[in-house]
């Protein structure tokens, strides 16, 4: 009689099991999938109107069969504007976080892996940057990279021959990506450094070193894959913060600028006309806040699933 062989689970399968038992996190995950589909696939549907067509005969209309969310002060369809604005907000959240994570990953792993005096210096720099007024610098930095970005837009249009309508919405966002990304990498650098330091003296790294592998290969093939868990958790939790930042900047008139729109811009326009047309604030705010909520739920769930120490609570 042989006992049935129990098939082992990989750490990732194990984490997925834990995550899928967490109702709030799964709700957040499916909600995010739905929001992304609605915002990116929705506008392709024939019944979704253009977000830019102005109709001065019908400004500030109430929600109705024709305009699901009503129209804004220029008679533009709010439902379409919320979808297109969502594309921008999600894009900024994801790309800017991506830039920040990439920089933080490289900086933190180099600092942690090399150690010694260089590590001291690099972390001292992080300490100093950490104490700087973040928002203020993002504002200044985005103004500085504004002009190079518009020159880049012209260059892309000239060399590729693509139409301005296709290129401009992406390239005009680049100051935001660069500004937020290049200032937001500090936390991830600290996390990665701490992780790399715990791994670099373990036996499997010693083994790799004694086999004569180079530093680059040891770092990228053997150490970094172990660091991915905390990085994923932090990334998920950082996206809502960065989306909030984009909306604050747009609200102040310093981030995404018209005719581009984002949830932050829609909320600002809604707030200006709140007394007469409340839903101009309510619909964008609802989309924005529920997306942030879903990201936070998913991030908390991922932390519990990927960090076994915290899973007891």
């Amino acid at each position, binding site marked *: 009689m042989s006992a049935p062989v129990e098939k082992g689970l990989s750490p990732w399968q194990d984490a997925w099991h834990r995550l899928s038992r967490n109702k709030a996190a799964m709700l957040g995950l499916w909600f995010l999938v739905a929001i992304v589909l609605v915002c990116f696939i929705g506008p392709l549907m024939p019944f979704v109107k253009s977000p830019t067509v102005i109709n001065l005969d019908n400004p500030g209309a109430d929600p109705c069969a024709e305009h699901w969310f009503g129209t804004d002060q220029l008679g533009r369809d709010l439902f379409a504007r919320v979808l297109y604005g969502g594309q921008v907000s999600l894009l900024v959240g994801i790309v800017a976080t991506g830039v920040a994570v990439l920089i933080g990953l490289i900086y933190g792993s180099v600092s942690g892996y090399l150690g010694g005096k260089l590590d001291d210096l690099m972390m001292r720099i992080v300490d100093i*940057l950490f104490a*700087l007024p*973040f928002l203020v*610098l993002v504002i200044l930095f985005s*103004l500085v990279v504004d002009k190079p970005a518009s020159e880049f837009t012209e260059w892309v249009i000239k060399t590729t021959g693509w139409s301005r309508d296709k290129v401009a919405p992406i390239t005009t966002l680049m100051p935001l990506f660069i500004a937020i990304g290049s200032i937001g990498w500090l936390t991830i650098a600290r996390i990665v450094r701490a992780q790399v330091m715990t791994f670099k003296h373990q036996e499997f790294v010693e083994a790799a070193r004694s086999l004569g592998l180079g530093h680059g290969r040891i770092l990228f093939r053997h150490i970094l894959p172990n660091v991915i868990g905390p990085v994923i958790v932090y990334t998920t939790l950082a996206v809502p913060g960065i989306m909030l930042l984009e*909306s604050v900047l747009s609200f102040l008139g*310093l981030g995404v600028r018209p005719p581009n729109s984002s949830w932050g811009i829609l909320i600002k326009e809604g707030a200006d006309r709140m007394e007469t047309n409340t839903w101009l604030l309510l619909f964008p705010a609802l989309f924005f*806040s529920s997306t942030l*909520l879903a990201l*936070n739920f998913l991030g908390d769930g991922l932390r519990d699933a990927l960090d076994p120490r915290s899973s007891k609570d």
Partner: protein
Amino acid sequence: MARIIINRLVQGLLTLFVLVTITFFLVRMMPGSPYTDEKALPAHILEQLKAYVGLDKPLPVQYLTYLKNLVFEQDLGVLLKKDGVTVSEIISQSFPVSALLGVLSIGIALMVGIPAGIIAAVKKNGPLDYACLAAAMTGICLPSFVIGPLLAVFAGLGLKSLNVAGWNTAADWIMPALTLGMVNAAYLARLTRGGMLDVLNQDYIRTAKAKGVPGWRIVTRHALRGGLIPAVAYVGPAFAGMISGSFVIETIFQVPGMGQHFVNATTDREYFLIQGLVLFYGFLIVGANLLSDLAQIALNPRLRAAA
């Protein structure tokens, strides 16, 4: 203890130096100049204007002059578009407004957030805990510029005496402070709950329970001190967050504080005003971080040994 303070002070000064340098060069790299908006000025008048404030000199010279004036004369420079107004005057007028708003909202955040977090931790997984967590999560996900206008509409409609715009009487303070305070209360509640839960799971709390110490006494005498550390650690950096929040709040409620000046200064390219305000913000943050570090050391004896 003294060594820690000196260490932090040196680091704070270094931080301010880096901040001044970064800001100076970022500001000069911004496209446009303070004078582009004016009706096309004759070239010689423009030259005179620039020479008057030293903008005609090469950048490194300007930078060193700025540093020299800053360190030896505490001179932050003048406004470029308003004759005879100094940056120090603007800051000394608007700082009390922003400081009052900041203190009021931190006060609200502490009074709401910390008790809510403690109650949630003590009643873990009970209905009260879930209510606090849900409220805190809502506060985190609703940006201040949604809460602000909504509060303004509901309170402004219900209570006519509360002014929703302006900063003239004490009644004007309530709405902006409440909005800014609520957002931070939400973060504080979550941190306090987490910190308290960590401490309440410790062995010495179980010992206290076994000895028969009453529940409220365990919380107030044994758990609170350790449980508050994450919240205290948050308050310093939260001060920086307050600044970003107050940009928005000051815009919504038309509060004449530093945030409004900063936003206007960036669009007007008021070089010295931007630099002065950023330095002042940095100064406040460095001070707040120092205080929060010291408070953490006071709460946690282990940090004292480590230093």
